[in-house]
């Protein structure tokens, strides 16, 4: 893609976002909605800018990020190792597949009350919920990626004298990385969503808590601020993951 086409694409993509903000401003300016129900965009963004430098708000962001990263990291480690193990080991496969089949479509938010009762109201229950939700997309795509590794590659490695244990790390894992990263991307978005929801349901800190407090006290401006913040966080994390992906996949034909 040349740079000119890229610029056109960026301009095209900016249109709907600009349009959305324009309509938002218009609704306010022409008085279709009172500012208590829909605050004007200028007010929301200046409030957001102001909040970003506020230590209390920064602390809320840090809390949310801590839960998000811990949960996501555990989910990646568990998901990748279980997925690879299930794809390479018939016995583990027989055990993991039916359990995953049952647990994957279960709406994990419904389990949140159980986590609350068992693990308490602090970080643990929220992190567990993030793990429970982010685990399955990662596990399933790892499994898919590892089971579609070409058998010929493995045979060649064996013929070249690679011991079985090393085949796992030198052939199967690298070959399934594209698929694993796709799973991680879905898992990351889900982690963002879930950590926010968990904080909305019961929490004393974090971005979700900020939203709920604002909703209870009818501060519409403050309701938009955490939503925009989580959207920005999602964008940044997604960008980082993309950068990591293009670094990890630099040798692959289509990245």
């Amino acid at each position, binding site marked *: 893609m040349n740079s000119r086409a890229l610029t056109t694409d960026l301009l095209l993509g900016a249109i709907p976002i600009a349009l959305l903000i324009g309509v938002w401003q218009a609704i306010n300016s022409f008085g279709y909605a009172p500012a208590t129900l829909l605050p004007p965009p200028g007010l929301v963004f200046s409030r957001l800018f102001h909040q970003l430098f506020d230590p209390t708000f920064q602390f809320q962001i840090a809390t949310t990020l801590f839960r998000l990263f811990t949960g996501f990291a555990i989910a990646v480690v568990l998901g990748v190792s279980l997925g690879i193990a299930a794809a*390479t080991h018939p016995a583990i496969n027989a055990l993991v597949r039916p359990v995953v*089949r049952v647990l994957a*479509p279960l*709406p*994990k938010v*419904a389990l949140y009350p159980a986590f609350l009762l068992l693990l308490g109201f602090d970080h643990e229950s929220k992190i567990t919920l993030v793990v429970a939700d982010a685990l399955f997309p990662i596990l399933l795509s790892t499994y898919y990626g590892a089971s579609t590794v070409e058998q010929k590659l493995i045979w060649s490695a*064996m013929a070249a004298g690679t011991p079985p244990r090393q085949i796992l790390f030198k052939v199967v894992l690298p070959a399934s990385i594209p698929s694993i990263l796709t799973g991680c991307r879905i898992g990351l978005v889900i982690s*963002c*969503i879930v950590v926010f929801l968990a904080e909305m349901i019961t929490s004393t800190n974090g971005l979700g808590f900020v939203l709920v407090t604002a909703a209870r006290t009818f501060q519409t401006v403050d309701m938009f601020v955490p*939503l925009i913040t989580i959207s920005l966080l999602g964008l940044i994390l997604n960008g980082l993951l993309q950068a990591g992906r293009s670094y990890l996949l630099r040798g692959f034909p289509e990245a």
Partner: protein
Amino acid sequence: MKPTGIWRVAPLLACLGLLVVWQAAALALRNDSFPTALDAIRAIPSILGDKESLINIMASLRRMVIGFALAVAISVPLGLMMGRSRAVAAFFNPLLMVIYPVPKAALMPIIMLWLGVGDVSKTLVIFLGVSLPVIYHSFEGARAVEEKMIWSGAAMGLSTVQRMFRIILPAALPEILTGCRTGLVLALITMVTSEMIARQSGAGNILFNALDMGQYDTVFAMIIIVGAMGICLDTAFERIRARLVRWSEPSFNMPLSFS
């Protein structure tokens, strides 16, 4: 993938196994707020027998089905168009990327201010939650359609619309259905959370009210009911999917052999 004897009952065995683990854990922990699996199962008939809870659960399902159907009806054409036209994709992609990480159920408090606590807000939230994965997967599916097939279609005189329906839609169908399956799970999640935030009716309402009132049997019984809903819907969807796209089944049923 053909489910033979053992694979057919394996999920059932897994269910039983999980319940046994739960029972054992509950007996070992002896915690007041963690009832045993048997206690929770015993509480199910009283919930399903109660007319009001049944109406609540049916209302949840109705909202979910409407939201899901609307989302699929709108997102699939949009995703396909994005996949086939660079301009359309460039137009919508950044907007969708901004919306994707926002938890849709978190919009509930704001939407409630505008549309009230009724069915409309909850259905809208479910609609938003389902549409994004469906758009994304339709987009990916349409983008991966082989150019040669479209050229052949064009050479045989199919118009753009006909090509869309007779070549691109079937070719992208496996990917679209994957998106719909993710959407189905998300619809359930959004359903439960939206009802938890707007405590007015529905399965989520029963669940979190029971939690607030300390009726732990009911909490865990509702978890089983909602979970069973998820598993049943997913199994039904999987059946339909398998019938529609039997031709594209990947043959990766065999575990790799090298050990």
